[in-house]
């Protein structure tokens, strides 16, 4: 059943206007905007790129989550879906996996740009993939829950990023810490602790989502 739902989500992502192509375009646009804030001599600095990467990942995750629910609310199909006898935790997991994979796709495209412009090599990119996937579980898991908590009415929708950002700051800081450790090949400082914090956030996001998604979607 879960695979059917994941297939559903991928199918809807590919059919709607909010697919990987548009998300990648959004991410690259964000990167170009951010690059304007630095002098040209600094923009191939890997520390700056690393910071930009996680800012763009956070922004992309907000867009992805909003788009996923907007698609259901545009023509009010959500009543029909969420009144079915299906286990709603499976719907949460299908959204979590699908958005995670799409966000990972966006991250890979960004990392490919880094290979071209910042001299990153393929080995490092390969090592960064598990980090990206683990980070995405935390971001998307908490993101979906906060979105449902804050989107009870249109006037409150601005609260989503307002509440989301403080919660994901520890995720972003630790992801950035690990990524930098992998890039400069110095994994001594806070490396294990950062992985454990990311793992905690990912597990919390998934477990809270499984337990609360049904209640929040029907509020």
């Amino acid at each position, binding site marked *: *059943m879960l695979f*059917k*739902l994941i*297939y*559903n989500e991928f*199918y*809807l992502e590919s*059919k*709607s*206007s909010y697919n990987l192509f548009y998300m990648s375009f959004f991410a690259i646009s964000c990167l170009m905007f951010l690059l304007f804030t630095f002098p040209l001599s600094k923009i191939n600095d890997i520390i700056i790129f690393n910071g930009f990467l996680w800012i763009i990942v956070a922004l992309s995750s907000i867009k992805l989550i909003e788009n996923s629910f907007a*698609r*259901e609310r*545009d*023509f*009010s*199909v959500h*009543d*029909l*879906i*969420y*009144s*079915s*006898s*299906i286990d709603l935790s499976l*719907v949460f997991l299908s959204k979590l996996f699908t958005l995670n994979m799409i966000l990972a796709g966006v991250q890979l495209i960004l990392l490919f740009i880094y290979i071209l412009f910042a001299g990153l090599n393929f080995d490092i990119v390969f090592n960064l993939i598990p980090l990206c996937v683990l980070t995405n579980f935390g971001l998307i898991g908490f993101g979906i829950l906060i979105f449902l908590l804050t989107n009870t009415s249109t006037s409150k929708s601005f609260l989503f990023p307002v509440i989301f950002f403080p919660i994901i700051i520890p995720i972003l800081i630790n992801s950035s810490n690990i990524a930098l450790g992998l890039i400069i090949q110095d994994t001594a400082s806070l490396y294990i602790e950062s992985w454990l914090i990311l793992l905690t956030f990912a597990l919390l996001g998934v477990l809270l989502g499984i337990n609360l998604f049904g209640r929040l979607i*029907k*509020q």
Partner: protein
Amino acid sequence: MLTVKNLNKSFSNTCVLQNASFSVDLGKICAISGVNGCGKTTFLKCISGLISYDSGFVEFKSNTNFLFLSDKPNVFGDLTIEENLTILSRYHNQKIDMNIFNDSLEVLNIAELRELPLKFFSQGNLQRNKLVIAMNLKWDYLFIDEPFSNLDHQGIKAFKKIFTRFKSEEKSIIFSTHHIDESKSICDKMINIKNSTLISDVI
């Protein structure tokens, strides 16, 4: 049988439903009428579990399925009728029979629109698409909000014919409506909601 007992629902301090009780057997059609804002949609949403209620209980006979169709289009706008139905059938863990699907398009006179994304459909054809969903998914109880709105005379006639067909298959339909005269001919039971209270059998 669907049984609702002493259902109470308030929004903030406004009481919408007060001690609402009623029951519907399988194979019956029940219409809910009332002025705008009296709580028809809230009642349907409460019994389909889409919103929580303050007190009371809603009980279905075991192993019964239900389908809730709101007064909105209930579609993914970028998909065609068939794609939309396929996606919805997966959420309901069911498979589509293409013979029934083709038949439903013919009966509702929208076969020529099958390649068109649903976002380009007129309001009347979106309403017809709701019945395509109902004809192709398996259910015992259908809760449908304002089924006759946006329909022309032919559409209303087709809907009533299909509702009667559902009834002959021992399926129950509970719908809210303002078209009381149109509904009388097919309904077994009519309920009016007035001052947050259900008044049964006003036929």
